[in-house]
């Protein structure tokens, strides 16, 4: 049992590490783009710091989202929760709102298509925003 707990922990830890690595890779790519754009180089420590920061902030976001969903007496995280999360930054909020409307539109269209066809339409739309990922499943 203890071994199971340990292995679980180890698995979680390794999973976490893999996630961190993925985040680090993504941050690196983004920083390269910005570096090309602004003609300013990023040091490795900077990229590492940014990725660590992003990871921790994602943890916070996740907890907040869960709290918001529970506050609204739901068990599923919603776009409303995400919008609540992004309210501090005006530009981010606007961006997310636009995206959510886009997604809502797409969903409506798909529903319309679904009625015609029997699709197993589950489209995952990922938002590249820092706020996190919004998944809308049908």
């Amino acid at each position: 049992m203890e071994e199971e707990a340990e292995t679980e922990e180890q698995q979680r830890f390794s999973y976490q590490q893999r996630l961190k690595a993925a985040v680090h890779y993504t941050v690196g790519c983004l920083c390269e783009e910005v570096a090309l754009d602004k003609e300013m180089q990023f040091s490795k420590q900077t990229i590492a710091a940014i990725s660590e920061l992003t990871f921790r902030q994602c943890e916070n976001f996740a907890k907040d989202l869960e709290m918001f969903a529970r506050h609204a007496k739901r068990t599923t995280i919603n776009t409303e929760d995400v919008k609540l999360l992004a309210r501090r930054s005006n530009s981010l909020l606007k961006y997310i709102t636009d995206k959510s409307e886009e997604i809502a539109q797409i969903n409506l269209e798909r529903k319309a298509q679904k009625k015609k066809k029997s699709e197993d339409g589950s489209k995952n739309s990922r938002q590249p925003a820092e706020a996190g990922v919004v998944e809308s499943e049908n």
Partner: protein
Amino acid sequence: MADHNPDSDSTPRTLLRRVLDTADPRTPRRPRSARAGSCALGTLMWLWNLRGTGLERLRARRALLETASPRKLSGQTRTIARGRSHGARSVGRSAHIQASGHLEEQTPRTLLKNILLTAPESSILMPESVVKPVPAPQAVQPSRQESSCGSLELQLPELEPPTTLAPGLLAPGRRKQRLRLSVFQQGVDQGLSLSQEPQGNADASSLTRSLNLTFATPLQPQSVQRPGLARRPPARRAVDVGAFLRDLRDTSLAPPNIVLEDTQPFSQPMVGSPNVYHSLPCTPHTGAEDAEQAAGRKTQSSGPGLQKNSPGKPAQFLAGEAEEVNAFALGFLSTSSGVSGEDEVEPLHDGVEEAEKKMEEEGVSVSEMEATGAQGPSRVEEAEGHTEVTEAEGSQGTAEADGPGASSGDEDASGRAASPESASSTPESLQARRHHQFLEPAPAPGAAVLSSEPAEPLLVRHPPRPRTTGPRPRQDPHKAGLSHYVKLFSFYAKMPMERKALEMVEKCLDKYFQHLCDDLEVFAAHAGRKTVKPEDLELLMRRQGLVTDQVSLHVLVERHLPLEYRQLLIPCAYSGNSVFPAQ
């Protein structure tokens, strides 16, 4: 009357009646003073041997000074009446033991209560020779014992407020408060002089001063609340008005905007400045800033105004003003030189009193008291200066100068009474009068401006005044509550803080609370509600990290809130295990 139930006697009326009954023997107490002294001495010795704290000293003193005019003081404290009745009783019994035994019946609670209620009355202002407390209650003659009692009594108020009230403060304060309480104090003085002749002048004066102190005590708590700033008032006391004026002459960049933009100079600085000074959150600054601003404006005014006359005059003017300000503060009533008209003197009187009151409210130290006297005329001077400036502009042909020119006409000794009507006086005549003013002592025109001050709020001619005083009241209700937090902040900072820093703190607090309230509103809307509920607050605190999985909201409520709120917020806590659903 011999019954002893101080606590049950809660109505001042009954106490007063008792006091009045005991007041008759006031004069007969004179021959009894020796006995009273001996009784008091015995009680003193007993008390000191027992505890030796200020409590007992005060009790002993009160037993001594039962003769303090009862009628006057009864209104203030019933404990005094109580003390007096006790004292009467103690006097009635000649034995030490009885007196001490009578005092023994007093519980510590009543003693403390008496002290708390009467501590302000005890005089800090004792003759310097008596300041040193007599540690041991040696058998002394009644006179010295009384003086020592007074000194012991001095201990009490000295212990409570760390600094501030010093003998110097009370001297001018006494004088100034006499202005307001003339009739009252006359009666008090008479009563005290009658009853306390045997006890010596020290106690009598101390009592009167203690009465004065009661008005001054509201000033103390502010300094007590901020021991970190306790060092301040003594430093301010050391600064004299002349230094203030000189400093202001050197630095006077801020006021000019107020002066030049203002088309109705009299109204704003006169009416606005007290408001400005009142709304300042940091009271230790007020005195210095008041004087600074006042003197700054004064210097500004004197600067341009004196250009034409003589460049050398400003220095003389200011220096003269410094002295005159002091003279003015001390005996303004007498300095009506060049000012004609009794009606002018009276409004001047009121104006200065108002200024004094305002200053007193802000927690004044000695120098501030002088500064108030200085600021009164200095504010007057600023009005002067404004008029001078505007006159200078008017001389150049500005239309606005007419308004201030008109108001500056108020300054003049001749045109003061007709200030509302003299609005259209010509700038030239004003200049001529200004020359006269320079020649005359400063307080005279200052007095004139003060006299015009009460008249000006009534004037409809000054439309900008409501405009400028408008923003101030508008801001105050919003930030009224934050000043408390700012004061807390400055207290915990334990070091002096600039006013701008405090303003920034206030802004940050404002934004912070705005954020919090917005969050609460959004949380409520998120849950589909229109009312903010405790769940929203819990969510907020969870985001803040105050409420965690280990620490719940109820735990925080129990930790930090008083018991009443706990009962409110945690329904189970007080229910006695019978909890019914909300619906």
